[in-house]
């Protein structure tokens, strides 16, 4: 359980990536949103990402030397991740400063740029864990899972934040519901891949399925959001704000549990037989 | 804070003066620190390398080089000048600095109020010596002799100077002594009957063997440097055979491994002898020239032994025995290394004699690469000046009273006229290592005074009244030789003794001074020699000649030296038996109650209630109760365990790691199971060791059952540690 800084950082940063992307979609597909509604949202993303980056420092033995971590851009995805998320943070701040009702196009471009860099940062983050030494990770799944985390948490967060103040061009909740469904199905495929893989993959799958928090997560993170949100969108009813808040909280807990398992259940290559 | 009153500066200074008085060290403006001195001028902090010698009771008795900087040990390594040690240390030797600098060492003389209470007070050396000396004098007065004082000292430190502790005891009068050895006596007697004494070829020339049987010996754990020699011999084409009831680390490396039923080694050797006899593969010439009684031996074989019988006894197929006998008798030189484990049985001595006979009848005695290798004492011809002292004039009695070390607890309790009232323990941890631990507890409880000299708190120290801190090998000089290889290693003092630790000889001198102060003439132990003088006094012309030096000080520059002339044991054919020949027929053996021939003696059988033989061999991360307790060893392994065969485990529903109670009438231990095919269905294995802070001691189950031999050479029979029968259950 020593990986809490990483768990929080990855989940929070992915929330931000999802949120900034959702916001950009909203701004692009509809008419510009009101600056006074968007500004606090972007401000909150700055705080969350900044906080996440700060938390991630506690993973280091020497947090004060963290600035060194961008010195191996040539081959280290960790260096690239740190750099890209730092740029994302800067872009978000610029974005925040640009938000005013006077000039919507410039801020849209800035939002687009921030979303793009944020997505790249997220992919870099996933590639950090794409390690051949860990057969459960050495594939496309870390990237898939990280994107899905962003795709579930982001729309929910933005929807929750904006729903009271703004009439949105489209409902963000079904987006999250669909992502939850895809994420859940993706995980079933992932498990079957692990069970057929190396002994270490197999053991990882057993660790996952044998853990209570895995099943808690399945309910909180996949079944309930997918069920509630998709049912609501089929019935064309709007999810009320308190349900949305409850769902967001459930998903956040589910993602954190899932990320904890991502680190703790994974079995490294075994040396020797014992 | 209301109740606290502010004192004026005047009152305060009055108080301060009182502190000063308490300290006796003056005041702020006139302060002389008591624990400091002016730093001695030094331009640089020098690095020095010292020679040390590992003094543990171990075949390898390694030569060590110790790097010291500014008076502190930086590292230890093997001394490459010793071609046996080859500049390498074993896992234990490499961990030495951790022992010297553990903050948990016993630092000062301490007295316990209430044995086992943990209530210790620090006392000065003078107080300690006064109390002990007074007790000795009181005992002498009350009982008219010093016989109620009993010494239990053995091999925790095998430095020659540590025999000074025996010398100290001799110097106060006749005392009671733990006599004998728990280690190897049955085998010594066996070889003494056969050859006249123990003497093995230089182990370094084992590389020249063509055929080598490692019989009941596990050098991969207990003599690692010899394992290298064995592997080198194997590389050069020597066939390595391991015979052992356990699939030991050594057996794993052999060309051929035979899993023999425990305690039936003699049957296998005799079966082989019979085959060799029938097929006329023996060395007739050698027998005619060198042996006494081989005709009788051949007669015994013909009338009593068959290969089929041996197969039945040992569990080894007849065909395999025949092959083995054939190969062994057809290749020269062929040798056998006889381990100590295989003689810790009620028929252990006889089994060794049978193996000796096998080596002798094939003419492999007295040749390079051959031999019935067991041990030797040929390099041990020192003066024992520290040890040999006469009692003071007027001492009553006619000699020391011997207490069997292998049944120490019971014999101490039974001693009468006079009873034993005081114990002095040095270089031993009997509470952890001796059989029948619960009886040992009672024996300690019955004493008036128990003095233990040690480096760390252990089960024995816990049961003592006074504990005295002793030096490690790096803190006192000495000299070490081996009972296996032929080297002599000088041990230099590399660092100052930590805290108030003293060497056994220094303790003896202190006690002698105190005794004579309280009652002049009560102790004859010299008090005015330096440690170097004590060392010098151990040497004599014979030793110098054997090792090719003129003065022991040469060792300081020369490093370790080897007795080259001893290389091949019995090459000259002059055996030290009464007949001067190798004795198949030994009247000496008969005198000690044995059959004169190496005959088969039935092994000790499992009682119905306790179907498993519990073998408790040595453990690779420690030697007896030393080393396993250090943190580096704990990193590798930190718990004892019992090895159980998979079939037995299945039968008892035991899984890997389950706690298993190993018990018999005497007691029990509870240890986790390790399920392994390294043992057989009729044996469980628990390695003997002392673990820090763990309630584990296999000796709670071990009965003080004597081995068949040992009385001739060591004064007492050995102990049949491996004839221990137990039952197991999952808990």
């Amino acid at each position, binding site marked *: 359980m020593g990986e809490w800084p990483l768990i929080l950082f990855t989940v929070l940063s992915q929330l931000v990536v999802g949120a900034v992307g959702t916001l950009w979609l909203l701004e692009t597909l509809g008419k510009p949103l009101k600056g006074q509604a968007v500004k606090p949202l972007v401000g909150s993303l700055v705080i969350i990402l900044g906080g996440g980056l700060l938390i991630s420092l506690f993973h280091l*033995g*020497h947090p004060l030397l963290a600035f*060194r*971590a961008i*010195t*191996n851009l040539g081959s*280290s*995805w*960790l260096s690239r991740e740190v750099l890209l998320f730092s740029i994302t943070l800067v872009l978000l701040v610029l974005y925040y400063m640009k938000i005013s009702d006077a000039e919507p196009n410039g801020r849209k471009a800035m939002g687009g740029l921030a979303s793009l860099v944020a997505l790249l940062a997220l992919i870099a983050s996933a590639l*950090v*864990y794409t*390690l*051949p*030494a*860990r057969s459960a990770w050495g594939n496309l799944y870390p990237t898939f899972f990280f994107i899905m985390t962003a795709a579930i948490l982001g729309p929910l967060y933005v929807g929750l934040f904006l729903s009271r103040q703004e009439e949105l061009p489209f409902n963000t909740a079904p987006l999250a519901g669909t992502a939850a469904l895809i994420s859940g199905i993706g995980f079933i495929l992932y498990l079957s891949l692990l069970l057929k893989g190396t002994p270490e993959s197999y053991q990882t799958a057993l660790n996952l399925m044998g853990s209570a928090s895995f099943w808690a997560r399945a309910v909180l993170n996949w079944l309930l959001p997918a069920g509630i949100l998709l049912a609501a969108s089929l019935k064309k009813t709007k999810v009320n704000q308190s349900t949305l808040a409850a769902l967001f909280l459930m998903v956040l807990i589910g993602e954190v549990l899932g990320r904890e398992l991502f680190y703790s259940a994974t079995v*490294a*290559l*075994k*040396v*020797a*037989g*014992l | 804070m209301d109740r606290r009153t502010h004192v004026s500066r005047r009152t305060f200074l009055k108080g301060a003066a009182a502190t000063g008085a308490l300290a006796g060290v003056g005041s702020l403006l006139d302060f002389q620190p008591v624990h400091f001195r002016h730093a001695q001028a030094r331009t640089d902090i020098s690095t020095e390398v010292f020679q040390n010698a590992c003094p543990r009771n171990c075949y390898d008795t390694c030569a060590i080089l110790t790097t010291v900087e500014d008076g502190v040990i*930086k*590292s*230890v*390594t093997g001394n490459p000048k010793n071609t046996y040690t080859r*500049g*390498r*240390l074993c*896992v234990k030797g*490499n*961990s030495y*600095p951790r022992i010297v600098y553990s903050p948990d060492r016993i630092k000062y003389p301490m007295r316990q109020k209430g044995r086992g209470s943990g209530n210790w007070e620090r006392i000065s050396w003078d107080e300690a010596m006064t109390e002990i000396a007074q007790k000795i004098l009181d005992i002498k007065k009350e009982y008219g002799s010093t016989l109620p004082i009993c010494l239990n000292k053995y091999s925790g430190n095998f430095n020659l100077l540590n025999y000074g502790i025996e010398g100290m005891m001799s110097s106060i009068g006749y005392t009671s002594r733990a006599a004998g050895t728990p280690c190897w006596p049955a085998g010594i007697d066996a070889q003494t009957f056969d050859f006249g004494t123990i003497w093995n070829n230089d182990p370094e020339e084992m590389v020249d063997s063509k055929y080598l049987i490692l019989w009941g010996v596990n050098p991969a754990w207990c003599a*690692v*440097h010899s*394992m*290298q020699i064995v*592997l080198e011999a194997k590389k050069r084409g020597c066939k390595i055979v391991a015979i052992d009831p356990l699939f030991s*680390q*050594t057996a794993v*490396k*052999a*060309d*051929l*491994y035979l*899993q023999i*039923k425990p305690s039936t080694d003699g049957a296998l050797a005799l079966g082989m002898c019979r085959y060799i006899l029938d097929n006329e593969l023996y060395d007739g010439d050698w027998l005619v020239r060198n042996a006494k009684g081989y005709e009788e031996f051949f007669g015994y074989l013909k009338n009593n032994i068959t290969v089929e019988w041996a197969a039945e006894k040992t*569990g*080894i*197929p007849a065909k*395999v025995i025949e092959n083995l006998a054939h190969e062994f008798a057809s290749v020269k030189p062929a040798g056998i290394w006889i381990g100590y484990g295989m003689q810790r049985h009620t028929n252990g001595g006889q089994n060794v004699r049978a193996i000796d006979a096998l080596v002798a009848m094939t003419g492999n005695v007295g040749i390079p690469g051959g031999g019935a290798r067991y041990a030797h004492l040929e390099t041990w011809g020192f003066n024992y000046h520290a040890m040999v002292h006469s009692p003071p004039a007027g001492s009553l009695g006619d000699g020391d009273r011997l207490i069997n070390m292998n049944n120490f607890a019971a014999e101490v309790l039974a001693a009468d006229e006079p009873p034993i009232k005081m114990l002095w323990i040095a270089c031993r941890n009997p509470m952890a290592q001796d059989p029948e631990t619960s009886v040992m507890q009672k024996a300690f409880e019955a004493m008036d005074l128990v003095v233990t000299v040690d480096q760390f708190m252990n089960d024995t120290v816990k049961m003592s009244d006074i504990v005295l801190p002793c030096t490690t090998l790096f803190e006192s000089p000495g000299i070490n030789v081996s009972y296996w290889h032929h080297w002599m290693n000088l041990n230099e003092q590399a660092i100052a003794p930590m805290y108030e630790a003293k060497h056994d000889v220094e303790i003896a001198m202190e006690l002698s001074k105190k005794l004579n102060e309280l009652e002049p003439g009560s102790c004859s132990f010299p008090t005015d020699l330096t440690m170097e003088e004590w060392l010098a006094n151990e040497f004599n012309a014979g030793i110098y000649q054997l090792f090719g030096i003129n003065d022991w000080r040469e060792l300081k520059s020369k490093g370790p030296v080897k007795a080259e002339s001893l290389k091949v044991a019995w090459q000259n054919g002059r055996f030290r038996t009464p007949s001067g020949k190798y004795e198949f027929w030994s009247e000496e053996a008969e005198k000690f109650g044995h059959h004169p021939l190496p005959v088969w003696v039935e092994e000790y059988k499992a009682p119905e209630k306790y179907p498993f033989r519990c073998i408790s061999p040595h453990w690779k991360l420690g030697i007896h109760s030393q080393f396993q307790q250090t*943190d*580096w060893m704990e*990193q*590798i392994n930190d718990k004892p365990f019992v090895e159980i*065969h998979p079939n037995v485990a299945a039968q008892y529903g035991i899984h890997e790691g389950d706690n298993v109670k190993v018990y018999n009438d005497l007691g029990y231990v509870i240890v986790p199971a*390790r399920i*392994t*095919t390294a043992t*057989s269905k009729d044996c469980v294995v628990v390695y003997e060791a002392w673990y820090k802070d763990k309630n584990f001691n296999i000796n709670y189950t071990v009965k003080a059952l004597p081995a068949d031999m040992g009385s001739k050479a060591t004064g007492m029979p050995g102990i049949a540690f491996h004839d221990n029968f137990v039952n197991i259950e999952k808990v």
Partner: protein
Amino acid sequence: MKGQLGFLVDIDKCIGCHSCEMACKNQNQLDPEIRWRIVYPMKGNSSVPTERCFLSLACNHCEKPECMRVCPVRAYTKLENGIVFHDKNRCIGCRMCIMACPYQVPQFNSNTKKVEKCNLCAERIEQGLNPFCVDGCITDAITLINFNEFNEIKAEREIEGFPNPNITNPSVRFIPYKPGVQIRRDV
């Protein structure tokens, strides 16, 4: 010296005595929880019981070291003699290398809060000496080899218990255990 240094581990000779590990610890003055070289006991099979066969491993100084690839601070460098050198001064204790090494070689020192590992006694190599483990091995089971000159045919690149060498191409070779004839009672 140029080339690729590495270890030849003769499992047939190794008796699992831990002297190599302890010599390393003693001479390099390591903290007790840190083991630059580890003697791994192997699970048994039909010819050898559990814990009677061992795999002694230190850093394998891989040709394509994962630790070096993933390290964000360039604490790892590959010296011209092939040693994968870890510089404690640069390390910030992110533990990325611990995740990435297929052989679990880098270890986190909770005292220094940095990672450390075997540097193949680089300073000794410069003086023409062997690493401490090689000199400390009682049975000569560990040899320092230079892959530029190495052509021992008995040496294996892959062996049971040793993780897939195709990831990093480790600079270690093994001579496998050759069991003798065994006459065992209860197998």
